[in-house]
């Protein structure tokens, strides 16, 4: 498989991280966004990141120069139509995504792979927005934040995605600095489904809304379990609202299956604006 020319649409945290990672793999990358201000912000942030790696002697000057040359920022109208892979990393809104895919399908040549970095929407459902000819080359590529550091890419096969394409993508990422996992197009894919109980069960163990209990549970799961972060400090970092929303989304998608049921405290905390680090109050209080 040849993946040399990549287009990433959406210059938010995920999009810019994905663009940076591909440039680090010596791919030509065009990063696209509606907002030129957002594009410049993303470009400046990526350049700063490479400059810091240069200072730390983790990259050579020549490598940084090359990567800066490989990465450009553009509007959608300016990108080349012969890219190997286009990755969408825009807002999680199904209608907006489907409109975009329709445009991408018309714009890019027939061999271009179109991928979505969605964490919430079925790939098969989104593939309805592209032509029948394109559907076999429409796939989910779910990166994890920060995309330059986290090794996993979930490769999600929609009902119409070619198996050969998934296999080739798996091999390509496996040969690079990533650990791919192939998964079926089902709610939460792998991680957002299997990880739900890392949050849900400690909430039930805690029983009461007392900070010292959260601290103790975090401590045990780090010390005994070997987890890098405890569930409560992690939920505070992610955002209680974000975590609650993902939980509800998976719970809804599985027809209110009890294994995914949110805890009443999550809802209460969102209502009280106890959203974690960003509001300085979550399971813990931050000064």
């Amino acid at each position, binding site marked *: 498989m040849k993946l040399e020319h990549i287009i990433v649409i959406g210059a938010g945290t995920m999009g810019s991280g994905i663009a940076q990672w591909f440039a680090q793999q010596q791919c030509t990358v065009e990063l696209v966004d509606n907002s030129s201000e957002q594009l410049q912000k993303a470009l400046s942030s990526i350049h700063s990141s490479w400059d810091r790696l240069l200072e730390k002697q983790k990259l050579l000057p020549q490598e940084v120069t090359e990567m800066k040359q490989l990465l450009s920022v553009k509007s959608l109208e300016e990108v080349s139509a012969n890219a190997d892979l286009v990755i969408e990393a825009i807002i999680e809104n199904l209608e907006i995504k489907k409109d975009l895919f329709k445009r991408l399908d018309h714009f890019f040549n027939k061999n271009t792979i179109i991928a979505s970095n969605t964490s919430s929407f079925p790939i098969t459902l989104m593939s309805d927005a592209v032509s029948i000819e394109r559907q076999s080359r429409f796939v989910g590529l779910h990166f994890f934040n920060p995309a330059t550091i986290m090794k996993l890419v979930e490769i999600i096969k929609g009902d119409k995605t070619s198996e050969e394409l998934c296999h080739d993508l798996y091999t390509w990422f496996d040969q690079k600095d990533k650990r791919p996992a192939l998964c079926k197009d089902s709610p939460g894919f792998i991680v957002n489904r299997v990880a739900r109980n890392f949050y849900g069960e400690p909430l039930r*163990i805690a029983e009461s809304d007392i900070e010292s209990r959260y601290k103790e549970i975090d401590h045990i799961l780090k010390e005994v379990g070997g987890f890098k972060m405890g569930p409560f400090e992690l939920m505070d970092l992610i955002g209680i609202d974000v975590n609650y929303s993902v939980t509800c989304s998976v719970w809804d998608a599985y027809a209110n299956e009890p294994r995914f049921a949110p805890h009443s405290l999550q809802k209460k905390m969102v209502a009280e604006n106890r959203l974690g680090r960003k509001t300085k109050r979550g399971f813990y209080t931050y000064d």
Partner: protein
Amino acid sequence: MTNVIYDNLVINFGFASKIEKKIFLKENSDKEIFMDLTCFDPAEFYAEFPQLKGSFSALFCDERKKVEVHLRAPHPLFISKLKELNYSPVETSIISLGFIFPRTIVQIINEAYFAFSENVATRADIDRAMKFGVNYPKGPFEWAKGKEKIVVTLLNELYAKTQDKRYLVSPLLNN
């Protein structure tokens, strides 16, 4: 079950049914006992057996040999004996059926089995996803390897106590 005995102090290791654990306690009412209760509710055992001075969970121990320990009262001798046996005790004041770490990971393992049985991904890819997507130290199937019976017992105990269907065991894990 394996017992390590120091005079009047007995440390009871290993997996056994609730009945076997209780029979052992009944037969040793004159000793100070510390028991691995990974799959059970320490509170239930404490209420029934005053000679049970504390409980611990070692059934999911990895090479680091960190053990979650709950003591009814401080007991430096037991802690020092555990250390002599090359365990690293980590004390908790929270009494929970299945302790904290086992109860959390059996739920993660159970979900991984559900996902695998629904052909969401291979076991290897599920393990890989959890290790490299959210930095878990092990994948759910790596944790479960050889410990399926323990996982099922704990989930069944949780279901029996709470009647909450979130603890129903994946049919694949049950087989």
